[in-house]
């Protein structure tokens, strides 16, 4: 298949749009389940079209730019953010053959792009010229940078263990032994993912009760949809990387590869949603202390441990 | 407890007090005595202020009346201090430095009745909108029909 067809259709844009609608629906349903509610119910069978309806509602909305906002930056930022995270998807092998590109430095590119996100979000907050957005932007930078160190370190642990940066090769070489050895790295990676993508309980940059919606406050309609979508894609890409690095990617008995891949992703998402339903948000200073005093040293220790193991195995 | 206070009030301030309820004492005092009385009551354990309740008796020709309700949290007793304010001179010395929680209550009473609490650091409009300052809606003479919100269309 041609690469551009892949990019648009199968593992690319349209496929992912459906996937995100599904994930959004799933989040609502699972949260509703934990809340003992029913969740979406009336639109479509079991309310399955609710998210689609919401997306169309967002697309219809007026394009509002604040009077004092930096107009160019304000309207440009969502697309920049979207392009940056959309590039992440290209490097993820959903099954043996369904990937867009595969290079020898896949992991490096993914991590580099994720590291590039904080300034984009900061500018999103800065350009909207609202106090809440501004504080939200500052918080994003603060939080993401402190979260990215453990993210890098734990991802590199896997790369060191398998001796390659190519996703496909990592999947092929993965085994049960590798899973158990990399378990601490996996836990650190998932925690760091929650921090980097500001998911609860680390949703400090968009803490609703403090600063309304952080850097997203002034966005509405299509811009908002794109920005939120890019945040969702970031989380999805990082979880996919987690699946590839630590959970054996598309490997699995009986069922086709892509199904296994999504089952694993589903597990991770379930965990995210349940955490959201049970853990109150922590404060910025507590988060920074947690990142720099606990998570980063642990990630470093883990890296040292992996290097030791690697020495013994080889 | 209340008997004790009653005796003390009689000896120190020469104030008669009557029992208001089963566990409340009513002391009627003069405006210039108020601050001393409040200080005395605070020293004697009535340190939890409830409210300032101003009553408008102008239709009956008795001016205004400010009631300070204090509670003793240890012995569970109340004292109500009553100050009458003539209509011509609506001023009372503030007690907000003695009982800080009463400061917003005094502010509210000023806003609603126009009784000026001399010495209160913050007599600003609180509950009413800014353009309604000086309406004094809880007074009996307040007329609902006279005061309407200024509408933008009529401008």
């Amino acid at each position, binding site marked *: 298949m041609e690469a551009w067809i892949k990019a648009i259709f199968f593992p690319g844009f349209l496929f992912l749009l459906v996937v995100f609608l599904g994930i959004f629906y799933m989040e609502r349903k699972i*949260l509703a389940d934990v*809340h*003992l*509610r029913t969740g979406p119910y009336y639109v479509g069978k079991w309310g399955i079209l609710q998210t689609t309806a919401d997306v169309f509602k967002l697309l219809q909305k007026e394009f509002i730019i604040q009077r*004092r906002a930096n107009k160019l930056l304000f309207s440009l930022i969502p697309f920049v953010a979207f392009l940056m995270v959309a590039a992440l998807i290209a490097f993820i092998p959903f099954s043996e053959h369904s990937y867009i590109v595969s290079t020898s430095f896949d992991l490096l590119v993914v991590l580099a792009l994720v590291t590039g996100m904080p300034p984009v979000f900061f500018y999103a907050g*800065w350009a909207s*010229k609202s106090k*809440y957005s*501004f504080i939200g932007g500052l918080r994003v930078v603060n939080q993401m940078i402190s979260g990215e160190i453990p993210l890098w370190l734990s991802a590199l642990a896997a790369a060191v263990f398998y001796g390659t940066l190519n996703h496909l090769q990592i999947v092929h070489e993965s085994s049960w032994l590798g899973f158990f050895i990399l378990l601490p790295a996996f836990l650190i990676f998932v925690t760091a993912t929650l921090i980097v993508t500001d998911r*609860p*309980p680390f*949703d400090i940059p968009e*803490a*609703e*009760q*403090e*600063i*309304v919606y952080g850097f997203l406050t002034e966005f509405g309609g299509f811009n908002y949809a794109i920005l939120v979508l890019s945040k969702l894609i970031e989380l999805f890409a990082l979880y996919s990387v987690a699946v590839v690095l630590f959970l054996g990617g598309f490997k699995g008995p009986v069922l086709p590869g892509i199904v296994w891949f999504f089952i694993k992703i589903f597990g991770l998402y379930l965990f995210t949603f349940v955490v*959201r*339903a*049970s*853990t*109150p*948000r*922590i*404060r*910025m200073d*507590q988060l920074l202390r947690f990142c720099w005093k606990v998570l980063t040293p642990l990630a470093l220790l883990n890296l040292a441990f992996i290097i030791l193991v690697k020495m013994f195995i080889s | 407890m209340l008997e004790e206070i009653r005796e003390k009030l009689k000896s120190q301030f020469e104030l008669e007090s009557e029992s*208001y*309820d089963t*566990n*409340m004492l009513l002391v009627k005092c003069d405006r210039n005595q108020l601050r001393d009385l409040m200080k005395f009551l605070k020293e004697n354990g009535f*340190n*939890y*202020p*409830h*409210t300032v*309740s*101003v*009553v*408008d008796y102008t239709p009956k020709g008795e001016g205004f009346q400010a*009631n300070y*309700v204090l509670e003793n*949290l240890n012995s*569970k007793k109340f004292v*109500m201090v009553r100050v009458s304010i003539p209509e011509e001179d609506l001023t009372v010395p503030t007690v907000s430095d003695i*009982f*800080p*929680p009463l*400061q*917003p*209550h005094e502010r509210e009473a000023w806003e*609603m009745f126009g009784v000026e609490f001399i010495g209160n650091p913050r007599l600003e409009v*609180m*509950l*009413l*909108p800014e353009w309604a300052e000086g309406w004094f*809606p*809880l007074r009996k003479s*307040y007329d609902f029909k006279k005061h309407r919100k200024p509408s933008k269309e009529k401008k």
Partner: protein
Amino acid sequence: MGNSISLAGYTFVVEETKEISGEDLGLLQEKLLQLNWGVQHPASGPMRLKVWVDGDEVVKVDPDIGYVLRLLEKLVEYRTWQNAIVNVERACFIDNFGTMTGYSIAAEKIADVELPKKADYVRTILCEGGRIVSHLIGLGSFVGVMGVHTPMQWALIAREKFLDAFEVYSGQRIATASIVPGGVRFEPTGKFIEKMVSAVDFLEKEFIPRYAEVFIDNPTLKIRSQGIGVVPKEKAIELGLAGPALRASGVASDVRKDYPYAAYGELDFKVVTKEEGDAYARYLVIWEELIESAKIIRQAIEGLPEGEWRTKFPIKVPAGEAYVNVEWARGCFGFHLVSDGGTGPYRLKMRAPSFANLWAMPEMMKNVKLADVPVIFASLYMCHGDIDR
């Protein structure tokens, strides 16, 4: 555009129309950011907190209230003794029985009306039901300000059962208008008692274990709220805190115990106090009072006497006045009711506990982080209808 500050390359306009003076101007000149935490804000409710922040530190907090002012105290003067309850109950919708009870007791004191015993007991049941309903919302919103909505949803499920019971009793779920001077308005039927018992059963058997498992002793909740907004015992009295906030500082002040009204004198319950005085202690006080209230309802239902539930209340009440306190869900609610011998109240002053708590709040919010503002705000357990009246 004089009231503006430059930060990070562009100007924030603080307030365009209003001139700033006094302390606020000083804060502005020090290049502090004023956040309007409110009126249109996810956690503030209909009020505005002007929060001056220096980076992440809060310098000064100033509440701006009056957005839901209805002038209830004035409206009551235009009512008769009976129908003034609809104004009194609207002080706060969430627990409306407490306010109606207080007003009715005050009116009965002036008119010198003796209540039948059954009315006292029904009032007790309703008041405690109202307290539970209110506390459930308090619990939910306290955890809700930290981004978790599960407790609120769980609490609402339990609340629904109580509202069902109120509906069976009075015909409405929230604005019940069910307690009048001279007793209670409706007969406490067997079905009402049944519904109430089933609601308490649900609370004790389903809600309390389910909630306690996750949201009591929750580590992240603890690190957020322990040691935040600490008020020692003396300070609490000096600031004039009321209700659960006062009890969380170790002051055992509860009108139900101190000056028993309705049937509280005959029932066995304990006053919940905590010594720490921080936000978490206030949360726990609400939680334990919830359990305590369920027990009170059970006792009151067991001891419900036979007889009339309403006596005749005169249309004209002799001149006189009364000051009555009731322990409302959010604290001690005072009613200063004056009668001049007419068909309605001459003056009613409502002493609102939330009003007292609100004005104690700026003192507690000095030198805290911005993220602690909603936590302290929610822990004080205020109702906006009650603040503005």
